[in-house]
């Protein structure tokens, strides 16, 4: 797949670092943010193909960011990440406009595959 620009919004640094490693090795450009506020600012200022969005952030709910994206940048592809081992809030996120979801923990292959699919369907 051709290289894409990915924004990661997760307060867990280890997940940001891991995503950066896996994605940059495949030639993708990766930007990291740790809060909802910084993430939203990055979405508004930059141009990204995919956003990896954690549903539980210290300052905001992932759903709020999803809502803002729906209003401001409808075409932006969002993949939500959930740590609750339950797909119910992922389903809710997809109903609200997310492209797909990743249930933590996931492997590098799952991450790349999900991003690949999301970009294909764009």
């Amino acid at each position, binding site marked *: 797949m051709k290289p894409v620009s990915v924004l990661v919004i997760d307060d867990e640094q*280890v997940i940001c*670092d891991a995503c950066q490693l896996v994605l940059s090795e495949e030639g993708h450009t990766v930007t990291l943010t740790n809060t909802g506020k910084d993430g939203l600012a990055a979405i508004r200022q930059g141009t990204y193909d995919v956003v990896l969005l954690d549903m*539980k952030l210290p300052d905001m709910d992932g759903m709020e960011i999803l809502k803002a994206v729906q209003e401001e940048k409808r075409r932006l592809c969002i993949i939500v990440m959930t740590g*609750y081992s339950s797909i119910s809030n992922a389903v809710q996120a997809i109903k609200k406009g997310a492209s797909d979801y990743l249930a933590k923990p996931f*492997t590098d292959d799952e991450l790349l595959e999900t991003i690949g699919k999301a970009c294909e369907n764009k």
Partner: protein
Amino acid sequence: MTLPIKFENYFRVFRDILRSIYSTTSLQEVLNVVVTKTATVMDAKGALLRILNQETQQFDVGAVYGLGNHYITKGPVSTEKLLHDPSELHKVKIITDIWHAPRVEYPQQAWDEGIRMILDVPMAIENKMRGLIRLYLTKPRTFTSDELDFLVTVAEQCACIIERVRLAENQQTHITHLATQMEKMSSLGRMAAGVAHEINNPLAGILLFSSNMSKKVDPGSSLEKGLKIIIRETLRCKSIIQGLLEFARDKPPKKVMADINDVIRTAIGVVENQFYVRHVSLERHLAQDMVKTPLDKNQVEQMFINLLLNALHAVEDHGRVSVKSMLDSEKNQIEIEIADNGCGISVENVNKIFEPFFTTRTDGTGLGLAVSYGIIENHRGNIRVSSKLGEGTRFVIDFPILDEIPGGKEDT
């Protein structure tokens, strides 16, 4: 010539005891009536009623009449002295020689108080001793077999009512235990969700790095082997957390084709005794032409038990609760109505009653109606409530009639 008068007295005592059984909900009041009336009619100085404590196997004082406080404070009596001969379970033991009877623990004291004769009337049902009524007489005399029969019958009635109350208390303990379990499960669910989130984040880091690294090492090397183990074990952690969450979460209903009347009858069977003890009437009008529909019998039974117990708590003693089931062919649904003439629910509270943890009772968990609501939703049913303060409450539940289990096969 004295006989007819005596029988009339005995009849009156029996009538008074029965009246007290049906008019009061307090076991203590019934026992007080028993000792007072029995001692008086038998011309005894006093009477002491002891109940067998199932746990300690000792006879605790239940009620006392005409005797000094020191009788009450004497403490429990061990069973050995009273239960050595099972053939005496339904017989009155007449003690004329209080000095040499092993059952009399303080003969000197009794003698000093003018006691010259003691009658032990066992309270037994189903060949099990429940307690004992001891009568203290100041003059030795003989008794007709009718008089002894009278005493045994009173004692048996007493044993029955004690047994009833004990059963109701056991059921109450069981139900309280279930409610506490549900509350625990719900906090376990919340805790599990929090723990899952906290653990899944570090696991995500471990899994992403290890799966990425495993592709960079030499195939077949010990490093690759180690990394594969880390990946496998991390995935195992993931499935353990998923299992914990599923366990703590509400289980999906297991539906079978069932007659709702049968489920209502089972639920009534569970709570009936508590209604009886509180003298609350439970009327039932179950539709004769009821049809089967897919139900999770355990869940629906739990829901009826919750609603019936709420109704029981809402009414005063001697209140009225009714359960009706109807078939509405036009709407293709089953309707069940549970109504009471109790205290009712205020307008402010009526909208909150299905919220988890909402309760007006000090001993309530606030989960009964919330859980019931969930169960009805699981069956694609509806519940409506109408209530008036001081007049009563009426719940109407409807379930759709379906010819087969949604989603296919019947669960068993």
